[in-house]
């Protein structure tokens, strides 16, 4: 069976002023896969996600969703096409309530019933959020905020979910919970691009992985092979 690429990033170059942040990054993500992008701080992981989401313009190259180019499409329209990003650091709307945050995640939905169904689903996945539905998001703990960030992103019913460092700053128990959630979404058929510093966890659940260094993809392989790769083991898994 030939895998169908759902998201293709084709040789994109991103500049911040004179800084050449991405020097020709290419990735392919097939339908239903979990693909992880690992790399050190400042390597260009978040920039890659932001280029896909349209938050930063790419000067060269293309991003294609189901073969259709989405480079140059405004961020808020990309959501409607089926790509949603959970940004780094959760980025709650701190003064909005939990429920309002979820409603904003479903901003592109036009039918009230779909919004309600999304909220119910988020509360079913994360019962803790239901208890805190009328609380402002700024008062949630880090773990609860991550749940809300994921729940909020799922509201739009994404085909492709971009996750930026979902385990950052969480206690180990919560890290496990977040990764269980990612596996569950994967099992339900969501395609996932996972950016992580926690390369060990990421490579455990991913199908394939890319390694990015200073704006370039330096390695790409099946996750199982990357786990055994010497360079990866030394640089990202801390195994000597």
């Amino acid at each position: 069976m030939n895998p169908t690429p759902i998201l293709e990033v084709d040789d994109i170059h991103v500049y911040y002023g004179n800084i050449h942040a991405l020097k020709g990054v290419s990735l392919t993500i097939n339908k239903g896969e979990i693909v992880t992008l690992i790399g050190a701080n400042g390597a260009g992981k978040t920039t890659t996600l932001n280029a896909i989401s349209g938050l930063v313009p790419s000067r060269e190259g293309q991003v294609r969703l189901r073969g259709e180019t989405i480079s140059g499409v405004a961020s808020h329209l990309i959501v409607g096409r089926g790509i949603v990003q959970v940004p780094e650091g959760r980025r709650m709307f701190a003064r909005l309530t939990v429920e309002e945050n979820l409603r904003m995640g479903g901003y592109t939905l036009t039918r009230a019933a779909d919004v309600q169904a999304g909220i119910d689903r988020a509360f079913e996945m994360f019962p803790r959020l239901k208890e805190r539905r009328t609380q402002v998001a700024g008062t949630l703990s880090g773990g609860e905020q991550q749940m809300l960030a994921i729940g909020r992103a799922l509201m739009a019913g994404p085909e492709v979910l971009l996750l930026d460092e979902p385990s950052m700053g969480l206690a180990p128990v919560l890290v496990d919970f977040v990764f269980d959630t990612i596996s569950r979404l994967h099992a339900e058929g969501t395609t996932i691009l996972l950016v992580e510093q926690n390369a060990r966890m990421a490579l455990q659940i991913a199908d394939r992985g890319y390694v990015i260094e200073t704006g370039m993809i330096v390695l790409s392989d099946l996750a199982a092979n990357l786990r055994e790769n010497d360079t990866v083991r030394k640089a990202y898994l801390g195994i000597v």
Partner: protein
Amino acid sequence: MKASLIERLTEGAIATFLWLLRVAVVLVVVVGSALTIMSGRYSLEVYVGLVVSGLTLGSIYALIALGYTMVYGILRMINFAHGEIFMAGAFAGYFVVTASDKLGFLNQGPVTAMITIVVAILVAVAVATPIALLVEKIAYRPLRNAPRLVPLISAIGASFVLQYTFRGFFGPGIYSYPTVDFLDQTLPISGVIVRYVDVIVVISAFVMMTGLYLFVMRTKLGTAIRAVSEDKDTAALMGIDVNRAIVTTFGLGAAMAGAAGVLYALLFRQVFFLTGFVPGIKAFTAAVLGGIGNIPGAMLGGLFLGQVESIGPTLFLDGFNVPSPNQLKDVIAFTMLVLVLVFRPSGILGERIARSRA
């Protein structure tokens, strides 16, 4: 060592000065009020009258202040052209009320007067809103990612452009609003003088503010505006059209200001191309007073400023035998702005934001 001694002395001097300033303000307010009240020069009715006119003026300030505070909330910039939007509304209202007067419709009775006022407000909103949207598009949107000082300068420029465009069209003269007989009549309450104009201004302002508050708190677009105010990138990642939220914010602020222009002109009966300047700055003061960026804060700040300005000169200064203290109402208003900026830059409701943000 020597430098640090000088530094410490300077700091000490500043601290002492600020402390003295506080004492002086408190003394003026407390002693002045006590002296005025003890002098018995004014009856209770006079004070009540001042409170009423303060409420009227304050609700107009509050309406204008909402525009400043909402635009600040979403773009972190002070829209100094906002006073001119208010002026545009006052002008638009002038033509409606004058036309109604010329047709002999205006003063046929309370009903025709009210119809005229409602139409004037609607026309003012319809004129003020597109002007504000145009200013946003031409003067602010291209500068959205510029350093914060740049849109501020652009705003001041937009303010001048609007003032002198109106001067060009309508000349430098003052236009008098026609007399609306009904508005000058007083409510049938003995002892206190409340004119219908006060009632109408206060009620319209409260209806509009309630409507705005419900819109921002309860509707999808209103929630999106709050989300964009907090974090534009994340809002875009949720599929929110950030531009639409910003344009809506400008539109709402302008609608409030346009309506406020008519109310203000009904109260003071005149309009000319600089009409927007002083109320604009006062409303900005009110927004800062309430905690800029905070919607209930702007309402509260406006009402508070109205009271201080109305009752303050008589209450604080008359007791010291200051001649015609009412001439000093602007001094009191702007002194308050300075005091707020020095002692509590976050405004009355500012701290609550900080807490719920954490």
